[in-house]
């Protein structure tokens, strides 16, 4: 059984990292893309490691070195939960190979564990990225013994288990309930969204309450960390105080909770999958009057139906826009001074009106529907290729989907912030215009990246929505185009901030125009997955 599990895991890894395509493909472009993806991932990882290292070091400088292991452990666990909750159900239950596998003499738990391991790999990478630099910083400042390094190294492999299990359990319960519902996409989207916002709000608000209450900062931080994730005290006790019993309890809990979870999921695995694959078919249709649309409108309606049919797609691409609105509401309700402390960005209130347009732009740039809109067509891509419509019309329909979601959120957010802060007419203009420029840029760029790196032979939509190269590259580009000007404004201490915003906006507008023109000159038949 274990052999079967490892075999399945290997097959999924081959697919996830496109290893076979890279080895067996005779196409140089394919290999180039793989190298580009690896480079992007390494770059993202290094940026995150650097950020974590700086964060850990700053804790040491304010004499809170002992909080580093627990703080990073709690943060990593919350991040793992957030990242897993969206995709867990899709990975566990949404695969097209379900029929193939269940027809084979394989026990459900083998399939469940192999799928779980696939998610575990990506979460383990995140754990390594966050825990290694923080452990090194702790090592430099606290000078712990060999035992710390041994316990940290072994413990790394157990950290993702419980957060992943909890997130997957939530996902599985939601999927289980929704499998009997007619509007299952809507239900899954709403529940997953509230769960994610809940995790983020809870982990942020825990420190906010105590901040003003107590003067002992170490105590505040300890309380904040402990309330962030219930296992944090145990981990801190094990690593900082060298408590072997706490350490063994942490490992034991990780294994036992995971084992119980696998047992429970395996028990209902076939039932949930069968319920999900059963379709409602009435078979009583009578021909009615048909509504006539233009080709663009017809494509747009088709795209919108595809978008709304996947809760994973809606959640992953909509979260940035919704966070944008929540952020704007928070600014209006809570006030910018308080936001400064919640976001741990000292000096934010002074330059807020300058960076607000780009901050909104950054949230809009986290994810766009367009970056996976070509790949998501999968094996249906032949339809778009064979239709007598221009490339521009096909791309415009995909662009319009993102704009339909993004532009109202952008205008609402800008308006809320405009009410919250006092601003000059130029600042107001930028507040409305800049996020729109960012949205247009990321939307068009999403098409460009996906058209150059499409994946059509996926068997789980989570792959193209969450893990594919275009998504990672778009995220990196989006973060860079927003992060660089924000950093510049911070560094220059608000000097010439409006000029920076205007220059960046003009550059982005020009790039957007060039990309849009180039995209429209592409031939759809040339947008193919390389063999």
């Amino acid at each position, binding site marked *: 059984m274990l052999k079967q599990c490892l075999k399945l895991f290997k097959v999924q890894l081959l697919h996830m990292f496109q290893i076979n395509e890279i080895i067996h*493909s005779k196409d140089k472009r394919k290999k180039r893309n793989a190298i580009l993806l690896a480079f992007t991932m390494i770059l993202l990882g290094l940026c995150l490691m650097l950020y974590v290292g700086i964060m850990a070091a700053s804790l040491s400088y304010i004499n809170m070195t002992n909080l580093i292991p627990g703080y990073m452990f709690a943060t990593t666990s919350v991040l793992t939960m957030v990242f897993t909750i969206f995709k867990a159900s899709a990975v566990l239950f949404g695969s097209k190979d379900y029929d193939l596998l269940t027809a084979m003499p394989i026990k459900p738990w083998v399939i469940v564990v192999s799928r779980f391991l696939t998610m575990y790999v990506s979460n383990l990478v995140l754990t390594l990225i966050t825990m290694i630099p923080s452990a090194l910083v702790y090592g430099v400042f606290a000078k712990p013994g060999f035992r710390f390094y041994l316990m940290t190294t072994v413990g790394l492999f157990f950290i993702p288990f419980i957060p992943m299990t909890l997130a997957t359990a939530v996902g599985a319960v939601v999927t289980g309930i929704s499998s009997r519902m007619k509007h299952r996409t809507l239900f899954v989207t709403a529940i997953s969204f509230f769960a994610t916002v809940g995790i983020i709000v809870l982990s942020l608000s825990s420190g906010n309450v105590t901040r003003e209450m107590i003067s002992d900062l170490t105590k505040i931080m300890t309380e904040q960390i402990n309330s962030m994730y219930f296992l944090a005290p145990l981990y801190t006790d094990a690593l900082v105080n060298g408590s072997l019993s706490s350490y063994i309890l942490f490992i034991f809990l990780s294994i036992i909770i995971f084992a119980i979870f696998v047992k429970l999921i395996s028990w209902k695995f076939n039932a949930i999958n069968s319920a999900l694959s059963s379709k409602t078919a009435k*078979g009583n*249709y009578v021909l009615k009057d048909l509504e006539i649309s233009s*080709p663009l409108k017809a494509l747009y309606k*088709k795209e919108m139906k*595809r978008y709304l049919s996947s809760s994973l797609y809606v959640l992953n691409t909509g979260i940035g826009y919704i966070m944008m609105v929540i952020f704007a509401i928070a600014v209006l309700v809570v006030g910018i001074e308080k936001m400064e402390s919640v976001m741990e960005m000292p000096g934010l209130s002074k330059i807020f009106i300058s960076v607000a347009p780009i901050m909104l732009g950054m949230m809009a740039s986290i994810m766009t529907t367009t970056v996976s809109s070509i790949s998501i067509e999968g094996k249906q891509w032949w339809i778009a290729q*064979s239709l007598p419509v221009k490339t521009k019309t096909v791309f415009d329909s995909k662009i319009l989907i993102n704009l339909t979601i993004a532009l109202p959120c952008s205008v609402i957010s800008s308006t809320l912030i405009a009410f919250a802060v006092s601003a000059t007419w130029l600042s107001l203009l930028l507040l409305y215009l800049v996020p729109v420029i960012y949205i247009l840029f990321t939307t068009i760029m999403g098409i460009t990246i996906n058209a150059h790196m499409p994946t059509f032979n996926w068997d789980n939509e989570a792959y193209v929505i969450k893990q594919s190269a275009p998504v990672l590259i778009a995220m990196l580009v989006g973060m860079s185009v927003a992060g660089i000007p924000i950093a510049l404004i911070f560094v220059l201490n608000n000097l010439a901030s409006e000029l920076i915003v205007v220059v960046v906006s003009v550059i982005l507008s020009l790039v957007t125009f060039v990309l849009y023109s180039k995209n429209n000159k592409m031939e759809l*038949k040339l947008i193919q997955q390389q063999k």
Partner: protein
Amino acid sequence: MLSIKNLTKIYKGGKKAVDNLSLEISAGDIYGFIGHNGAGKTTAIRAIAGVMDFDKGDILIDGHSVKEDGLFCKSITAYIPDNPDLYEHLTGIQYLNFIGDIFKITKVERENKIKKYADAFEITSNLGDLISSYSHGMKQKLALISAFLHSPKLLLLDEPFVGLDPMAALVLKNTMRELTDEGSAIFFSTHVLDVAEKLCNKIAIIKNGKLVASGNTLELTNGNSLEEVFMEVVEHA
């Protein structure tokens, strides 16, 4: 109607999927395209349909090059791949209406055609259901109806009989004859040699990307069965 001139498609890695293929398909022809698995049938059909680029040669549909005037060629062509993956999140009627919008078919014409073909394929009552709930055969029927909607001058079908029940296969054959009687041309691949022999007025046999035999069905078989001719030609080519 369809003129294939020295069509060559080379895959990355150097394999010639289609090698210097030339064929002429006239209005009124039901042209069968046969060959073993991997012979290059699907690649050739995909190139004609404009969903795949090719390296050498040219393809003219009604005198227009698919390379230079692709949109026009697509507007008078209907293509159905061997395994038609349709938009599963749409209902059958939404998919047909979508195709009607793209091909700019008038309301009256599309309603009449949908009624005619959906009734013939006995699928009308299922048109309100999501395509994801359809069986393979039902998807094939829906794809065929969508192909007939705009009265294409050229119909490209890759293994159209796979998955169809006997009744639907008969409807398809009758519709193919009806369309060619009205001046359309049909080019289709099949492994069912019996059907090809009875239905097609012309046959082309392809092996390893090269055309090894083509012409009028009666002249090509010359009193033998198509199966015998196919085995003979493929073995000795």
